[in-house]
């Protein structure tokens, strides 16, 4: 089959090349390289169009494009390079060296230095020429995905958290455009190519590549840490059943013997609350989880309120947990296994195959933006809005006296922030007693009794009490569950034990986001902004405290300037050594190599059974597919015409396969040799049906072998 070259193809290739460069945005600052890239692809397109219209041989066209692209790239390189007395070649070599140094030493996004721009020009030229080679010279437009996906692939590996999935869309659009523009099979009577004749088959091929990429991602992703996860890998398919974290909290707090849960170390040596999850719902029966919308992409930037960035390195003991303890609000995590997050609560949840065991002995690092408003900011803040309505629902059936109590507590406070501080002070006052002997419930009755009569309980009661009061004052509130900061060890790290399990309220304040409060008196470290006794500019006590100095400047611009996970220091004594990386790489390469025959065979089959072929071609390729199927399932293919071959093979087949084969053979024979021809539209369906019955007859093992390692791909034939 020959594609007739179409002048549009070169233009479409050029546009697709430009589109495929868009994922560079998170890697290279600015768009300085784009005019040069446009120049390169424009030259290539111009030559392609002119020479195609002049009916030049396609290899000549490609050669002309190579020369022109090379010349333009060289000219631009010399223009970019600083003036020197060196020869042109040496100048360009030096420029390339500078570009490589810029890439190796800089952190994304890279500054568009001349050397880097020159390398990007070369990359653009290479992509456009490889596309011309694949699409026009080799007539394999389907493979255009490889050069077009190159930049995206680089981005997916180097800046996975900043590379949004949406960057794949221009790449895919360019690919589809290339597929559509490559012209179809010439129609024998007219010699012209019906536009879109191959559309269906190309879409099929695109689907195949999509499936292959997806499968590859599924195979590879469990081996990679989340930080390097491919962005197109969407969230888990099945619903994940999450355990009630308060139950776990109960168990941990009431455990007679304390046990180590984790140790952590922060980048600024300050203690942090490690949150596992938040319970948005608090109704008459207590605090509960809401269903999560788990996602594996878009973690960075999912929480957009100000805070101080902190990096935490955590080493878990042999403790199973489906939630990853991390300071609120997580910006990026670097942990082995598959992790997803819920954008509402910013909880990080294990979603891998052994999700309940995923945290055992896990070492990971987390970058979080911890809300740290100053006291003034809190006092000035009004209640926020625009969050889930659940977090504003006052639990039903509260005793009426609670309302009076809240009014008393709030007193003359005007803003939501002042009211919240007043509630915290009330709960932390001597009127309340910390005791584990309270009922393990946060139901309405318990809370009413806690606030009005008993005034004794532990963290969940203080948290639920404050949440209830906040909601009555119209402030959205939810219960955070996790661990208190724990105890500082001599080496500067912190140790968190089961008894540090904790719950605290988070209130949603306008402009500040979800601000954690600490109403539980037993915990001696409320942040300065929440502690009316503390000096607003206090330097913090030497004891472990989760407070963050308010002298730090407001951090509105911080989240976007976060370092990428690649810049993390290694966890001491942990992490994957070079040997592990090699093993992983070798495994990936091995899997990729092993899947080649099956993939080739799959593409071959889809290509042969594609619609839009002429009747004779369809019959011939359907019959070749049958031959391949028989060879793949271990039969010798006799020479001859379809019907005699079918007759010869029939004794080796089951009854249904034999009948299907004979019907196929008859149709193929009619279409090839008879005067009237035959309806070949049914052939692909017949071939697939035959494949199904043959696979059923030979059993799963032989079928799997036929699919994965088909011997037929090794049989090259000179004809047909």
């Amino acid at each position: 089959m020959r594609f007739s070259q179409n002048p549009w193809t070169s233009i479409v290739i050029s546009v697709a090349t430009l589109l495929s460069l868009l994922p560079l945005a998170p890697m290279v600052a600015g768009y300085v390289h784009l005019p040069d890239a446009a120049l390169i692809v424009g030259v290539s397109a111009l030559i392609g169009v002119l020479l195609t219209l002049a009916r030049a041989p396609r290899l000549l066209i490609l050669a002309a494009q190579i020369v022109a692209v090379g010349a333009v790239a060289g000219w631009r390189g010399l223009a970019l390079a600083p003036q020197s007395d060196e020869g042109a070649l040496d100048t360009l070599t030096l420029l390339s060296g500078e570009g490589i140094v810029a890439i190796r030493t800089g952190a994304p996004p890279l500054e568009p230095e001349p050397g880097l721009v020159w390398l990007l020009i070369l990359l653009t030229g290479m992509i456009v020429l490889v596309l011309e080679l694949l699409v026009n010279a080799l007539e394999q437009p389907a493979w255009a995905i490889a050069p077009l996906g190159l930049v995206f692939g680089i981005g997916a590996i180097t800046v996975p958290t900043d590379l949004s999935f949406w960057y794949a869309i221009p790449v895919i659009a360019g690919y589809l455009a290339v597929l559509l523009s490559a012209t179809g099979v010439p129609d024998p009577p007219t010699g012209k190519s019906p536009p879109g004749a191959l559309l269906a088959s190309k879409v099929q091929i695109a689907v195949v590549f999509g499936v292959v990429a997806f499968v590859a991602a599924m195979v590879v992703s469990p081996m990679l840490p989340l930080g390097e996860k491919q962005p197109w890998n969407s969230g888990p398919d099945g619903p994940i059943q999450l355990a009630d974290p308060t139950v776990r909290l109960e168990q941990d707090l009431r455990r007679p013997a304390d046990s180590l849960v984790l140790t952590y170390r922060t980048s600024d040596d300050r203690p942090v609350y490690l949150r596992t999850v938040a319970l948005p719902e608090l109704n008459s029966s207590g605090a509960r989880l809401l269903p999560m919308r788990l996602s594996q992409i878009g973690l960075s930037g999912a929480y957009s309120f100000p805070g101080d960035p902190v990096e935490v390195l955590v080493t878990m003991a042999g403790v199973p947990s489906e939630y990853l303890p991390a300071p609120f609000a997580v910006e990026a995590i670097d942990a082995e296994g598959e992790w997803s997050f819920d954008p509402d609560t910013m909880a990080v949840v294990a979603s891998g195959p052994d999700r309940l065991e995923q945290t055992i002995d896990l070492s990971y690092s987390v970058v979080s933006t911890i809300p740290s408003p100053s006291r003034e900011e809190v006092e000035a803040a009004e209640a926020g809005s625009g969050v889930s309505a659940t977090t504003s629902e006052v639990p039903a059936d509260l005793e009426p006296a609670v309302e009076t109590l809240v009014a008393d507590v709030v007193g003359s406070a005007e803003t939501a922030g002042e009211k919240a501080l007043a509630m915290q002070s009330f709960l932390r006052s001597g009127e309340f007693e910390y005791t584990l002997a309270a009922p393990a419930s946060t139901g309405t009755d318990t809370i009413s009794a806690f606030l009005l009569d008993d005034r004794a309980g532990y963290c969940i009661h203080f948290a639920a009490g404050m949440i209830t009061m906040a909601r009555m004052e119209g402030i959205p509130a939810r219960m955070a569950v996790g661990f208190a900061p724990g105890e500082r060890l001599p080496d500067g790290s912190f140790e968190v034990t089961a008894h540090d399990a904790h719950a605290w309220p988070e209130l949603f304040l306008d402009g500040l986001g979800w601000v954690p409060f600490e109403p539980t008196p037993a915990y001696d470290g409320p942040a300065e902004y929440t502690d009316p006794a503390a000096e607003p500019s206090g330097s913090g006590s030497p004891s472990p405290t989760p407070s963050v100095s308010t002298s730090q400047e407001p951090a509105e611009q911080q989240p976007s300037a976060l370092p990428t996970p690649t810049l993390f220091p290694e966890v001491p004594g942990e992490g994957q050594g070079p040997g592990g990386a090699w093993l992983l790489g070798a495994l990936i390469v091995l899997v990729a190599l092993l899947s080649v025959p099956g993939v080739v065979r799959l593409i071959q089959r889809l290509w042969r059974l594609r619609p839009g072929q002429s009747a004779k071609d369809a019959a011939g390729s359907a019959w070749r597919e049958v031959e391949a199927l028989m060879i793949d399932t271990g039969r010798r293919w006799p020479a001859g015409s379809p019907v005699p071959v079918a007759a010869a093979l029939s004794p080796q087949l089951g009854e249904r396969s034999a009948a299907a084969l004979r019907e196929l053979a008859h149709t193929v024979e009619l279409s090839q040799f008879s005067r009237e021809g035959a309806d070949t539209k049914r052939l692909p369906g017949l071939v697939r049906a035959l494949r199904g019955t043959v696979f059923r007859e030979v059993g799963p093992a032989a079928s799997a072998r036929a699919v994965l390692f088909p011997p037929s791909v090794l049989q090259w034939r000179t004809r047909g």
Partner: protein
Amino acid sequence: MNQTPTPPLAEVSQLAGRITSEMARVIEGKDQQIRTAVTVLLAEGHLLIEDVPGVGKTVMAKSLGRAISGDVKRIQFTPDLLPSDVTGVSVFNQSTREFEFKPGGIFAHIVLGDEINRASPKTQSALLEAMAEGQVSADGHTYRLNDPFMVIATQNPIEMEGTYPLPEAQRDRFMARITMGYPARTSEVAMLEHHAGGDRLATVSPVTDAASVAAAVRSIRSVFVAPVINDYIVAIVEGTRRHPDLRLGASPRASLHLMRTARVIAALAGRDYVIPEDVRALAVEVLAHRVLPTVEAQVAHRDPEGIVRAVVDATAAPNRG
């Protein structure tokens, strides 16, 4: 001429089956040769049987003639046979005072030309011209031959004494050449037993008539030959012309004959189109007697049949569309 309507191909196939099985009753163990003979009859060709005496060549011809209830005439070719003995002669009739044409041995449905290579080349060519043209011209008149008309010529192997080998051009006029070969032992025993009962040819009963056969022949002409099949036929024939072991390849007439046999074989299989297997089925019989091996090939005992078989096997069939 009042023609019998052309029958559907299924009936043609049945007709051929009846002829074949009737003949097989008297010629034991030679099914392949019988089928070839019937195929050649339906393909409007002539058959050359080359073998040593006494292996049933004559019985083959006669049983075929009887089975189709056609006229069978036998011309024993001898060195002194004259062309007019074959074609016929005009004789002056004293009573009508006009010349009357006395048809020769060729005026029959099945003509058995026995030991054709014993006749002089002149007489041979008289027969062969009549075969090619389907008519005889004598004294300004043209006389049409019968329909169907088939010559079954027998020939002793050319190495035998007192023979004039048929020239290449004349062998080319035969659609196919077969050899009878000695019968298998069981078949020969069976033959002896049957012979004990008298003239076995007399037991062959007509299963059809000449007009039906002529109609069947016309039916077969409608069998479709796809262009790829024609290409295949020509490729095979060209292959014989290029083969290093052959100093003379097959002629364009060979291509035509090969196509016609393929058509008959397709029709006998109940198909109205030809597949490559049909072409291959009789390729050796159709082509081998037309080619001349080189001296080197002869010295190396590479016979034409083997060479033609190799050519056929080496030619890619249009199976793969």
